[in-house]
């Protein structure tokens, strides 16, 4: 009888631990199972990415549609080569889509914002977005402001 109480308590303890783990996985880390959907990648060249990180959001109209998968530098041109993983099948972005690096809030994380164009042809897997605008760098802005003041 004594052993039985011990067994029931241990069972309850292990169950509580497993429930806690599931709670942490689902409610806290927020895994969702449709996140593993198909993606394809497109590349974009930026003159300055200023603090964009891999795994940063790629969004259109404020809705997350992908992630930044890798960031490389093209030494010859002095440009950043950013690879974006876009959710869904190729064919949902026009070839004249433009990409811009923006900031969430004033001090928030950098992300890539895509604005679709009007072209009928679409970007395939591995294609490049040509119409890009890099991040605004505060030092450059201040620099321009100071030179303009001097005129």
């Amino acid at each position: 009888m004594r052993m039985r109480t011990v067994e029931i308590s241990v069972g309850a303890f292990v169950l509580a631990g497993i429930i806690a783990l599931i709670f942490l996985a689902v409610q806290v880390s927020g895994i969702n199972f449709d996140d593993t959907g198909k993606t394809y990648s497109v590349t974009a060249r930026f003159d300055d990415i200023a603090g964009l990180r891999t795994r940063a959001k790629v969004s259109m109209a404020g809705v997350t549609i992908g992630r930044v998968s890798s960031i490389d530098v093209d030494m010859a041109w002095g440009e950043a080569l950013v690879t974006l993983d876009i959710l869904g099948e190729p064919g949902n972005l026009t070839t004249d889509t433009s990409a811009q690096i923006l900031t969430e809030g004033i001090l928030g994380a950098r992300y890539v914002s895509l604005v679709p164009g009007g072209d009928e042809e679409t970007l395939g897997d591995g294609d490049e977005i040509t119409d890009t605008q890099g991040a605004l760098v505060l030092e450059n802005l201040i620099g321009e402001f100071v030179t303009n003041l001097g005129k």
Partner: protein
Amino acid sequence: MLGVVRALGIRALDWLSTLGRATILWFNAMAGLPRWKDISLVIKQIYNVGFLSLVIIVLSAFSIGAVLALQFHTQLARFGAQEAVGVGLALVLLRELGPVVTALLFAGRAGSALTAEIGLMKTTEQLSSMEMMGVDPLRRIVAPRIWAGLLSVPLLTAIFNMVAIYGGVVVAIDWLGADPGGFWSGMQDGVELWEDLGKGMVKSVVFAALVTWVAVFQGYDCPPTAEGMSMATTRTVVISSVLILATDFLLTLVMYGDF
């Protein structure tokens, strides 16, 4: 001069031989797979070290979660960033405080009890009489306690994290009126399954191995006197606490260090 060198040498050799005995104890106890007929011994020990530690874990977790949420909220509210309370709370708990504080509490609550229990068995010659009967005390007494610790601490850590986050919810949302939507979505955005939860759990398994190892070794190796036992119990808590904190730094460096 020569005396100093000799004394230092003796201390160093003593220390080395203690480490050696501890390692031999660990391997002798854990050699071979756990035998299934010993499972009832392990269950008894999970009850002792795991289930009976629940009260202190739950109470501390709730207070720590509540106080973290309060501190985060008052500081972040100055920048209007109350929404970051959730993600800050979850990251601090999952990565550091959950595993470390659980292991420290476990060392104080269960580690000291393990040392005292095994030490008393040794003092009253129960261990030697077991050997006389042909029962290996390492497999019957030490191994089930190590397995129970290895299983209990990660579960306790998970429970600690859950209760602490709930404590934070009570303070930040129910009391200070933070927005629940921003709280939870910020948390789910910022926390990753393996990077935060998984690595924290790895830490807790490492801490469990350290604490149970120190505790059973101190009990097994203590001088069979009342004074020796009390010193061994104190040493268990001191050594395992220091080891937990030092190892935590090393693990954090390896897991999250950016170099």
